[in-house]
């Protein structure tokens, strides 16, 4: 079975298609980078798989079922692009990550000891084991992003979709994320990572899908996509202000930049 299967997919918002004519099959257990410049449609493509953008035409199947139809719950993990945990009311790391388990439990199920253990494991995996009972608002921006990663991991998903997990995160946290994703990938979870830059996750992601103007411009090994990008095949029309992650890493080797505390 394939984790993701798109045939002539048109995805967008309202009546406006952002992504058109996309054919894409991702096999179970693959680790795929979805690349593209701002506005290329890469995020819309991912959101279409999650039911957050509208499928306007073609076929979009996720884990064997068409998007939008009821499916077995709790099989998808999602890390949104949002940098921080919002919410007006305080919540602890344990509570936020606990939400990741809920979808698995059916409409009225409560967290059991096994679920609590999974929450603890997920929080430990992102290196925040000692902050389990702390309010999320007391964490730095980078740590809050890791809480959102832990929330997705707690679901023990078959398909994990992440939107720009490395953007605005310091080098140490990027490396930590790469290690976590390598572990997740090793358990057979399918990874789909929407990103600008692949340097930090190059050891984990093996296949690249480059989206350009709402269509797939490249689909093949990650190394090929990087070369393609280097030759100007994947452009950054507005991306001039972004330092490449390697340079960022060398400039600031000692200082954590993930927000004040």
């Amino acid at each position, binding site marked *: 079975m394939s984790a993701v299967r798109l045939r002539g997919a048109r995805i967008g918002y309202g009546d406006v298609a952002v992504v058109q004519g996309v054919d894409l099959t991702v096999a179970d257990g693959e680790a795929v980078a979805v690349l593209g410049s701002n506005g290329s449609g890469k995020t819309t493509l991912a959101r279409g798989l*999650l*039911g957050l953008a509208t499928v306007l035409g073609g076929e979009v199947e996720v884990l064997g079922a068409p998007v939008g139809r009821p499916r077995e719950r709790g099989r998808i993990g999602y890390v949104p692009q949002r940098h921080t945990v919002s919410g*007006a009311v305080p*919540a602890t790391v344990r509570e936020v990550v606990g*939400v990741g388990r809920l*979808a698995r439990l059916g409409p009225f199920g409560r967290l059991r000891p096994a679920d609590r253990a999974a929450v603890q494991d997920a929080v430990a995996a992102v290196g925040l084991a000692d902050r389990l009972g702390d*309010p999320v608002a007391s964490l730095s921006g980078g740590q809050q992003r890791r809480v959102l990663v832990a929330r997705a991991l707690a*679901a023990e998903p078959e398909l994990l979709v992440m939107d720009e997990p490395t953007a605005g995160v310091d080098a140490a*946290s990027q490396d930590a994320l790469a290690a976590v994703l390598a572990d997740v990938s090793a358990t057979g979870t399918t990874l789909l990572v929407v990103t600008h830059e692949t340097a930090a996750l190059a050891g984990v992601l093996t296949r690249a899908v480059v989206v350009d103007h709402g269509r797939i411009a490249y689909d093949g090994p990650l190394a090929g996509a990087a070369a393609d990008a280097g030759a100007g095949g994947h452009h950054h029309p507005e991306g001039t202000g972004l330092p490449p992650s390697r340079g960022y890493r060398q400039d600031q080797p*000692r200082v954590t930049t993930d927000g004040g505390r």
Partner: protein
Amino acid sequence: MEVLEYDFMQRALLASLMVGLVAPAVGVFLVQRRLSLLGDGLGHVALTGVAIGVLTSTAPVGTALVAAVLGAVLIELVRARGRTSGDVALAVLFYGGIAGGVVLLSLAPRGQATNLEAYLFGAITTTTTADVAVFGVITVVVLGVVWLLGSRLYAVSDDEEYARAVGLPVLALNVVLAALVAATVVLSMRVVGLLLISALMIVPSAVAQQLARSFRQTVYLACAIGLVTSVAGTTASYYTGTPSGGTIVLLAIGLFLLATAVVALREATARRRHRRRAEVHAAHPHEHGAGCGHPAVPHGDHVDYHHDGHLHAPHRTGAGVHYDEHGEHAAPPAGTGGRA
């Protein structure tokens, strides 16, 4: 106590006890969802329900409940269709409800009890035994649903997009929450009045969220605050002769101001201390780093440097690097090359 000698006051206190407990238990989710005014809008819709009850000589509590629940479901469906129009949908509901209520009440035949003020501002001492029974049922049902679905309601209120992505029944949960709000509105109608209902849902939560560390704590604390202010306000109104609704809400707002002041004071003190410590070490001769001579101590997601008996966390701001104090720690292990 004198206040307990009268049957009408016993009923009033019982009603205020139930309202004080239930309104914040539902209100916390509205605050989390940044939909604090939903209760207000549904209160206005309930007025139309009250008017229909008066016109048809049915119990106004029942018709208000039906109208508020219908309004609640309607607004969730509108929000689900075009999510940006939620604000306008609320406004239409708001004004349509109160306009409908006023117009319909004016059509009531002469001689019919149409005490508009009693519904708008509450008339707790007119609570009948039958009302108390209905309120009891509403209280048990609302608290039961919150107990059963609380974690899911939290999930949807906290991050609707995530909940949708992982397959939680978002629309159903939103409708359930809106229905809970509607039920709470009707429950609170007698005690605080339709115009002040939202306050009893929101203000206790606004106090609690400043003091609590977790969502669960916030819910419990908000319920406790709601219970105390509701019962205390009702009792006070008996002695002062003021309307119960306004008295309760003013009491809750007083607590809110107090909590806000305490928290602001605490934060100002912490900031001052932070600045003082930062000044001490502003004249650092070097940036801490590998080989700077100060032992490095891993601390959570970063590295602290041991320096003069305390830990420094490098912390980059717009003005350059400064050092946060990260607590007194044990002396570094011998032989790490420290010159602290």
